[in-house]
């Protein structure tokens, strides 16, 4: 038997027990088996893609989906289409920007929309100030590229002001 991904003989026969439709059997060569096994966790792309596929089949027309795919985060520039394909978001602000679109997905994956666990003891920056930080960093890089060092230094001060000083603990 040949490997499912190449022409080498399949020496590994792996049964994935995580598929909702029952066990999925993979026949792989040593190299491809290694790639699959060493990920250690189910690939988020496949779980996100699966949940999204279910979600999008329910209620959305092609036209609505086309529009949603074009939606683009103003801070990191990721489109919903890019997210759908990669399973990864572009920046923390995406959770606010795509909130309405992500909610059904989060419900599908976690069956919940509300974090009930641990919280950081330091007040998290507001969504706006976090967006500002990302923008200011981009501007600072651009200023350095243009060799406008005075401008870059002003921007750095603004970044530091938003970030605040880290809290000191113990003898650190």
């Amino acid at each position: 038997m040949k490997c499912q991904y190449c022409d080498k003989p399949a020496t590994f026969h792996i049964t994935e027990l995580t598929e909702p439709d029952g066990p999925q059997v993979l026949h792989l060569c040593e190299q491809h088996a290694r790639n699959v096994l060493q990920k250690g966790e189910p690939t988020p792309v496949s779980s996100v893609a699966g949940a999204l596929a279910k979600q999008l089949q329910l209620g959305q027309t092609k036209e609505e989906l086309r529009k949603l795919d074009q939606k683009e985060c103003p801070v990191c520039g990721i489109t919903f289409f890019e997210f759908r394909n990669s399973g990864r978001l572009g920046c923390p602000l995406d959770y606010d920007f795509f909130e309405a679109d992500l909610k059904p997905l989060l419900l599908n994956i976690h069956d919940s929309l509300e974090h009930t666990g641990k919280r950081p003891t330091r007040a998290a920056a507001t969504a706006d100030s976090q967006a500002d930080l990302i923008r200011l960093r981009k501007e600072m890089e651009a200023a350095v590229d243009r060799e406008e060092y005075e401008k870059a230094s002003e921007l750095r001060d603004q970044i530091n002001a938003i970030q605040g000083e880290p809290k000191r603990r113990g003898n650190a």
Partner: protein
Amino acid sequence: MREETDLSVLVKNSGEWLRGTGPESDIVISSRIRLARNLAGFPFIRKCSPEDREKIERQVRTRLENLPDWDEIPYVDIATLSEVDRQFLVERQLISREIADSEGSRAVAIDPSEQYSVMINEEDHLRIQVMHSGLDLVSAWEQIDRIDDAIEGEVLYAFHNKFGYLTACPTNVGTGLRVSVMLHLPGLVITQQIEKVFRSMQRINVTVRGLYGEGSQYTGDFYQVSNQVTLGHTEKELLEMVGQEVVPRIIDYERKAREFLIDKGQQDLHDDVSRALGILSTARKISSEETMHYLSKVRMGVNLGLIDDVQLATINKLFIHTQPAHLQKLHGRVLTTSDRNVERASYLQRHLCGPSGRADELN
């Protein structure tokens, strides 16, 4: 922190989690907890420029250096490592395959006893991992919680009042917590009960992955049980689900399967595990798959008292030390597959035979 690109110190030792002790260690190899965290004010890795990645790495490194007792923590710049060294850290479970294979600025801080490691610029800016031997989730959680608090005192995490800790992938959002217990289940595999057991587990929000599942000619019989959801439950609830509800039930099934095998035909079982030890002790060349297959049998034989002169810790270590990158690091040079098979057989012989007996601890 110490700059550490020479991994030879790690090669000679073995992580604490392989010592073969801890609760239920005849069946549970290790308990691993990881937390995914991101810094506020930076894009997630996918949208990071190379400069962003460097800044994150520098910033985290500087802040980690501020932590008490972190002066002696080796800090490894993954981008500068050779392929064999990266593979070595993956085999050792200190870094993920993803961070080993990615590009750009990335690093890992490794506790010398290998109980914890902090990856920088993996799928998330920070991946904190704690690994203990046996079923030991509560103390693993206490340790990782302390590390997380200490790091959080130094950096500002991306956190959302409603959605919790924000992660690049929505499958990790909320607690960012993944609890994974690695189980050795040869009894359930031999009695062909494994699939039935895990089918029943799928309804309770855990993921089970067969590392070398049944149906395979060569199987290590290892299975990893992890929580599926990360949002909507407290960390304690997730730990309890895996560590108190799911894993003890699987352990119970495995014990019953082993008892059944002994009752049914101890001679056959004894013969099978002894032959496995015989092959491992005398082969002149052996592949890693075959090694996994026979080590798995020997491990069960040790646990059932059918083999009494090999230590569990030795077997646990051999699973890792006979992997390709480990063999090459131990040998001190790059080896072809064929050379590795010879070196692996020789390594197994040295540790399972010899004048000082099989009970020898690995160095």
